[in-house]
């Protein structure tokens, strides 16, 4: 299973390709490709967005679904999805925590 990760051109924020090929800023909303055909399709969509100067550093990320949530296999991508592990008060993890508290 794979998702597409990238950084938004204007501010560098980590984003993922979501439903309808829209870029979303939380990994939970990423579109998961479950077969090679869909993987190829999302990779192509990522490259189109790169060419259109919407995002940079487009990468395909291996993920699994754990307790219903998307979890990247590599620690690197897990940290990218949350924020620096040493600063729970900043980055996406802080925003997500604030959202779930609300």
């Amino acid at each position: 299973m794979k998702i597409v990760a990238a950084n938004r051109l204007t501010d560098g924020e980590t984003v993922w390709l979501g439903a309808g090929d829209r870029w979303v800023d939380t990994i939970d909303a990423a579109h998961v490709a479950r077969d090679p055909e869909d993987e190829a399709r999302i990779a192509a969509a990522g490259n189109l967005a790169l060419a259109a100067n919407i995002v940079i550093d487009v990468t395909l990320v291996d993920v699994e679904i754990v307790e219903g949530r998307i979890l990247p296999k590599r620690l690197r991508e897990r940290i990218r999805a949350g924020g620096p592990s040493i600063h729970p008060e900043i980055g996406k993890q802080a925003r997500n925590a604030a959202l779930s508290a609300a």
Partner: protein
Amino acid sequence: MYRYDEFDQAFVKARVAEFTDQVKRRLSGELTEDQFKPLRLMNGVYLQLHAYMLRIAIPYGSLSPRQMRKLAHIARTYDKGYGHFTTRQNLQFHWPKLVDIPRILEELAEVEMHAIQTSGNCIRNVTADHFAGAAADEVADPRPYAEILRQWSSLHPEFSYLPRKFKIAVTGAARDRAAIEVHDIGLHLKKNDRGELGFAVFVGGGLGRTPMVAKKIRDFLPERDLLTYVTAILRVYNLNGRRDNKYKARIKILVHETGTEELKAQVEKEFDELRESELKLPEADIRAIEAYFAPPKLKARPEGDAVVSKAVKANPGFADWLRRNAHTHRNPDYASVTVSLKGIGEVPGDATDVQMDAIADLAEQYGNDEIRVSHEQNLILPHVARADLPALHAALVEIGLATSNAGLITDIIACPGLDYCALANARSIPVAQEISERFASQARQDEIGDLQIKISGCINACGHHHVGHIGILGVEKKGTELYQVTLGGSAREGSTIGEIIGRGFAPDEITDAVETIVDTYLARRENSNESFLDAYRRLGPAPFKEALYGHEAKAA
């Protein structure tokens, strides 16, 4: 401090305008990322895991209070309220938006700062002893020469596309605090028998995946020949350095593959041709640059001894701090102070905007308007009257920057690692934090004495792990972090590369492993005057291996 002249100011302003236009063209889609990437890197803009990163040059680690306040302002206005001081004596912001970077550079230019040559295959920020111009053991101030090298190397047309990046470090004291032997060129400023100034020249040092200690190719180079000789080295490197393989492109590989004697002969030949060229430094020019670095006029403060001894009796915390964080100044009424950015459990090298502003205030109040960044990721107030030390200490306690650990086991160098860096394989900072917490006790740290731990999150070695007395390298193995330990490294004069001690350790084992190493040292040292490094050099790795892995061998 050096002050920009009209030319410097115009040059930096022109560069800001140029990059502002490049960012505009990137955002409009006129430039592709492939086209833009080398341009942004030339201006210190990287892409990391969570955001862009902006690396700002702090020439030879020298900052004025005004510049520090500007950095605080940028942290507060455009970033997340903090900055990260690096082993290159620079500052990195980890969250700037690309759209804001032109404005940030404009603000930096207002205080004579920029981000030029903080990336790319060019001559990078020239680094120097952080006690330069203040240390009692210094022969002469290395900063004028670092400044001459900065001016010469800025946008140098011949050396803007080298095979790989190029780092120069300068020290003016026999005690090397600038790690010159692990730089591409290391310069040791000294005097000859006739009392003339010149340099011992080291070449081909470096860390990264192939760590090497530099070779001395000149014992005494007259100061007037600084630029001709450095140009000769760069020319030999630019011509012969490998461009076919990024991992073999640094000058250390060229020195290694060519052989020191042959390389030296090539450099000397080139030097002979350049010797009388326009690069030969006129005496008047050297002295003119030197004048910018004239020592501050320090008032006599003979009451220092009495004030300090009274404070030592009254406040044990001050006594600890004085012992570790005050360095001998050439004026006996003064001291150079290390402001530790290594609070127990804190992120090494990070400072908040509030702390940066406070340091700027303290530098004005007590420090004769000077601040330095050390390659050990601390801040330095180089000229503080000893009589003001108790008041300065009290003020540092207020802002959480009075940790008494300079040179101790919790004064850890750590790269940003996988928490930020796109190149990293493992985290560095949490390892540093856990070790710091484990050894938090001041008494225990003092008992252990001088011990440098340096941690890198990948083989590129930004955390200088190869030259840590205890070095820790994070790698990724089967999708998890693993920490490899090296022992016996040193970046001081007579640098050594640490030796890998054995198999690596999991994240939950690494602090215990460090503790085992430290306990082995304490048990085996001859007396409390024998430092960890001295003991390791005497004992070799065997007792440490036995302590770390002996039980495994027995079990097998």
